[in-house]
């Protein structure tokens, strides 16, 4: 099929690409940009492993035609750690076991990142609601919730963790 030029803004960088109109953002991120942190876990758009942030909102990249998202600011898991410092959520997931196999983790963290920005001190039920579009098959969610609580503490204390130090 014909490729068409598109321009995507991902993790603060602009990419000029040429892709067919039927390419999903998920595929373009993984195949064309090498940003493989965004995962594909299903074909019926049920799992949430492909979650990215679009203008700060978590959305599923397996449903998004890449060409339709040219004007948006897209953040993937690779864009979360800044200047070699992990986001508190990333540290929390490491320290509290939120990532077992890690396949749901990028999506979980991004969904959570967006949610905590709106509600920095959520109750457990609120967190469960917020994460209810991201499936995890490993943890039973208990350590994911613990990881988020740890992240909230870390953010509150302003403790920063370098990627290399964990």
């Amino acid at each position, binding site marked *: *099929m014909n490729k068409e030029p598109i321009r995507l803004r991902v993790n603060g960088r602009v990419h000029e690409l040429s892709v067919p109109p039927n390419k999903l953002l998920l595929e373009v991120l*993984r195949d064309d940009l090498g*940003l*493989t*942190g*965004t*995962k*594909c*876990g*299903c*074909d*019926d*758009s*049920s*799992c949430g*492993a492909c979650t990215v942030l679009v203008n700060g909102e978590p959305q599923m990249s397996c449903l998004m035609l890449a060409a339709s998202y040219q004007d948006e600011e897209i953040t*993937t*898991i*690779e864009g*979360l*750690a800044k200047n070699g410092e*992990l986001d508190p*959520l*990333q*540290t929390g*997931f*490491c*320290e*509290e*076991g939120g*990532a*077992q*196999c*890690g*396949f*749901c*983790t*990028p999506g979980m*963290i991004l969904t959570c990142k967006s949610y905590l920005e709106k509600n920095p001190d959520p109750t457990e039920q609120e*967190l*469960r*609601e917020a*994460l*209810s*579009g*991201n*499936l*995890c*098959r*490993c*943890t*039973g*969610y*208990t*350590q994911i919730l613990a990881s988020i609580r740890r992240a909230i503490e870390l953010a509150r204390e302003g403790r920063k963790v370098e*990627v290399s130090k*964990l």
Partner: protein
Amino acid sequence: MSATSPIGARVPMIDSVDKVTGRGKYTDDLTLPGTLVGKILHSPHAHARILSIDTTAAERLPGVKAVATGKDTPVKYGILPIGHDETIFAVDKVRYIGDNVAAVAADTAEIAEGALGLIKVDYEVLPAHLDPERSMQAESDFIHEDKPHNIEKEYHHHFGDVEVGFAKADYVRDDRFDCAEVTHAALEPHSTLANFDPDGSLTVWSSTQVPYYLMKTLAATLEMPEEKVRVIKPLIGGGFGGKSEVIPLELAAAVLARRAGAPVKITYSREEVAYAHRGRPRTIVELKTGVKRDGRLTAVEARIIQDGGAYCSYGVVTILYSGQLLNAMYDIPNVMFDGYRVLTNKPACGAMRGHGTVNARFAFETQLDMIAAVLGIDPAEIRRRNLLKAPCRTINGLRVLSYGYPECLERVIERSEWRAKRRKLPFGKGIGMAGSHYVSGAANPIIRSLMPHTTVELTLGRDGAVTLYTGAAEIGQGSDTVQVQIAAAELGVDWKQVKLVAADTARTPIDLGSYSSRVTFMAGNATLDAARQARERLLAAAGLALGAESENLVWKDGVFARRNNPRPSIPFAEACRLACGAEESLKFAGTYSPPPEAQGGKYRGAGVGPSPAYSYSAQVAEVTVDVETGQVTVERIIAAHDCGKAINPLTVEGQVEGSVWMGLGQAVQEEMVWEKGRLMNPGLLEYRTASTLESPPIEPILVESNDPEGPFGAKEAGEGSLAATLPAVVNAIYDAVGVWITSLPVTPEKVLRALEEEKRRTSL
């Protein structure tokens, strides 16, 4: 050991930063220049003879680089030596909807999919065998010619004398339990990347729990020498047994790569994952148990039928586990087991978390509560009265050394306020208890040999670098981290100092893989062995320099010194340099093989079930039942797990929680729904693993029975908790509303039906 031993520390998984940053690579994240996309053509029929396959049109499609069918690769394989009944592509028959018929490698996925549509296959449709109980009565059109009546395997065990046992009993009951088929649903769909080098050697990156077996099977089916095959396991997005044997795509990718002369990647769709399956079979358990008035067990007789699907897979092991591990929980004087592994025209079942034990345990623990209810005994008490007196050997020859089950029971009784709640909660609310156990690795390998079950190499660099080489497969359970902790503890260094190279058959020694919860126990022991040797060498070298015998040295605060004279001292790196002498580095190979005493009896089938150690779990579940809708809400689960020793409590808790949660899924909402051999719910939308919203809080309690043979006392942690959750929930439903549900999953409809029947019964 230094003061800050990493044993028992909540160490983050060593690959966790890779996972949270998206840097870590899973198989589908990998690509090589010129990688082609592979796609597999599947059978649309449950049972049919292949009359002809015409691939010419597909081969002519521009962009198609290779097409392969069964005639190219007729070598049979299978995970069990006695179950070599699969070929890469169907040779003469297809045996389930989804069976593998042909494959295409092409420049793009679109082209490959298009090419599949151009392959013409003529089938002669055969009668399909879909229900296990009927399949085993079949007289013709057997799924495999050499398996009459579609019985893959049957076992008949009798230990003690059940007739005598039942005669002694004051109460005997017989119940039938039916557990639906479930699947692993690991979030990462299987993926394989295969590449041939110009010298004809093959490298395969794959989402496998068993790199070593995969290497062997690739060599056998592609008819290559083993030394020309290299298997590398990248990060894995969950396994749970679904990746614990060779999966068709792994071989198909290699075949296509050879034909195309280019790297080929195949990643399954969710539906294909369901066809590859190897999940937990539908299991029918007919269980008869006799007890004395006080609840003491006198005899157990189980007839178990497993609907195994179209190929053997692990089936022989699965059916044996279901019978063998009726034992080693409680003291049962007489046990009889009739097990049937039946073939049907559906995807093959295989090993899934809690392999073979789960449905039998569900039946047993539920029936135990039924008995307790009739006899008016507290479910906690009936369990106490039947405990093993460990150390002991069970009637079927299983050796039990450490036995933390009694403590598990007491801990959940206490935490759950059992006495205050049981039978005292308002109608509709209930509390239930159950137990389970599991092996810490099988004492006998799948392929019998004298080779150790695992070898771990540890190198000491002259600069003090410590590197572990292990073939063990980390699949998200944290086994790499545990190995690092064990090495660090034994060498007295910070765990961050230990590098790990894992699961690359060209670089790491042989380990049999991640299945039957063997890694911490076995690879852990081998790591300990290697680290011990290294430590002795370091002590010897330091002793030589300090002019003291090594037993008079201490290793503390990062330095070696004489026991009663802290100065002079030798730091770790210096000791390494001294020990290395003229060498660049020193290598120590640690091994582990289970002791002969743990390898079980001599009867047919005795090889499955024995383990060097068993983990134990006791659980309490609290539920709310809406009696009008039949909906069950699980409010809370407390799970005490005897893991011997929690080398890493963080990951042990994670494993216990994950097991309990997966068991809960099977208990209340997961089910593979079949209609005429067709899977009605092949995606994650319809195969409903739980979301955060219906997942209850799970409270793990770690019990440490310190197994005498486990590394630092450790045993299994990743599977054993699963089985207890199912009966705990069902027993809680009984406490809540007074009905027994004997068929899984517990749908609201089944609850309603049971309530209606109960109403009818009591109004008579």
